[in-house]
């Protein structure tokens, strides 16, 4: 039914990746006259992990929301590549899942039914398996209100993963977590990305987070791509390394350079 590859398989055989490519061409989005994105272009290849950084209000979340259809661009096109035949679902449409800044769990459903949202009851064993993968198997029958913020985000991740997405959109999913939980979650996200090979787009304001996770860091400024930097640091990445620090310094410098002065 679904193909879950190990990281070694991905390295040996690119076909094992179930990610889709994303093409964003001359997209413009404006809210009541205020331009958020203008003539925006990026290409993301299948299975790539792209981080999008920028100041608050630069349009990075809007970009993500338009990929999943929550916003409609006034101009331009967003095209998703086709999924490799042997992993394509019956519908043939690539599966896109979003993780928001808040977990958006249904407070009136227990944890397992939350993970099962939109799934047939026959898939309960699979939901349990994914819940175990994020380390919350024993909380299946609890109410979301009894979980910590980090645990809720892990449930939200499980809810997205149970669909075996071709594209996972992460809209500052770790923004409200404490520093230790963030690092733990980053490792978890990296692990599942490496083992499943979906395409990932991460919106974040944390440059270090972007560098430790992504293959490529894109900086948005004034509605356009201001920087498109490939991260050539072998995984797993350690934040202490000189290359990491140098890259972080460079991107941060670029972000801070054009601070608007009033």
């Amino acid at each position, binding site marked *: 039914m679904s193909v879950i590859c190990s990281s070694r398989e991905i390295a040996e055989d690119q076909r094992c990746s179930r990610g889709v490519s994303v093409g964003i061409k001359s997209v413009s989005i404006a809210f009541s006259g205020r331009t958020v994105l203008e003539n925006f272009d990026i290409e993301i290849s299948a299975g790539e992990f792209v981080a999008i950084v920028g100041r608050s209000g630069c349009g990075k979340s809007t970009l993500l929301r338009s990929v999943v259809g*929550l916003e409609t661009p006034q101009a331009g096109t967003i095209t998703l590549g086709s999924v490799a035949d042997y992993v394509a679902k019956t519908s043939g449409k690539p599966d896109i*899942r979003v993780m*928001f800044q808040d977990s*958006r769990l*249904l407070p*009136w*459903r227990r944890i397992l039914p939350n993970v099962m949202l*939109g799934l047939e009851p026959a898939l309960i064993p699979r939901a349990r398996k994914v819940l175990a993968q994020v380390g919350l198997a024993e909380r299946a029958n609890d109410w*979301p209100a009894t979980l910590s913020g980090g645990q809720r985000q892990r449930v939200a991740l499980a809810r997205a993963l149970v669909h075996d997405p071709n594209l996972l959109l992460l809209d500052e999913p770790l923004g409200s977590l404490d520093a230790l939980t963030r690092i733990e979650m980053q490792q978890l996200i990296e692990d599942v990305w490496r083992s499943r090979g979906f395409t990932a787009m991460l919106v974040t304001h944390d440059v270090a987070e972007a560098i430790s996770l992504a293959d490529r860091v894109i900086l948005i400024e004034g509605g356009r791509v201001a920087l498109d930097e490939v991260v050539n640091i072998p995984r797993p990445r350690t934040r202490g390394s000189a290359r990491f620090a140098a890259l972080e310094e460079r991107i941060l410098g670029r972000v801070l350079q054009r601070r608007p002065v009033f």
Partner: protein
Amino acid sequence: MHAHSSVSNMKTQLRLRILVKQALPWVVPISLLIVWQWASSAGILPSRFLPAPRAVLRSFFELSASGELWLHVRVSTMRALAGFAVGGGLGLLLGLLTGSLRWAETLLDTTIQMVRNIPPLALIPLVILWFGIDESAKLFLVALGVFFPVYINTFHGIRSVDRGLLEMGRTYGLSGWPLYREIILPGALPSILVGVRFSLGLMWVILIVAETISARSGIGYMTMNAREFMQTDVMVVGILLYAILGKLADLLAKGLERYWLRWNPAYQTVR
């Protein structure tokens, strides 16, 4: 040895404190009852003004032994529940409709808000003219009264469902009935239950007035009938019955809240 006895001493103290805390709310009502009984026995309070608690109790047992009491309670309860079912059901349906569909709100909400400002009891003269003092008159009044709290809270509940959850539901492919069942209805439920609880209180108030003005049976009739014969004890029994039934209705509403909203931390502690 010494430490052990001090621990058990503390335990006794704690138990005593809990006992006092539990007994405290009952001190005032029981004292009032004692003063009332004493005033009646001493002849300070004439029985044609207010009967002694003992007389009320006696008349309660007499009425319930003869079966008369239960007949009236049954009739009143049936009226209340039937009116609540009709009015509350319509309020729920229309609230769901106007809450979910913009055009339904535009079409109906102004009218409903206008009618809402008429107190249902102001309609009594007209209602008697239309329905006589039949069952349908009381049903109509109760239904009209409970309609608005349920309607308004349902409408408000649907409108205040978390946008973020709706958005999330849509990205998970939910739309139409599944979206309604998974997100909109449960999200509106706390507000709907507030309306239900308010309605259950209002239901008795309206029924009391309707039954006192015109009825051939029911608690209100029993009370008014007793007035004709100066049976103050029966009147007090009737009044206390309304208090008990009102409290029961409120307990029912609370029970529903505790069950349906058990996911909500605010309703998880039993108070």
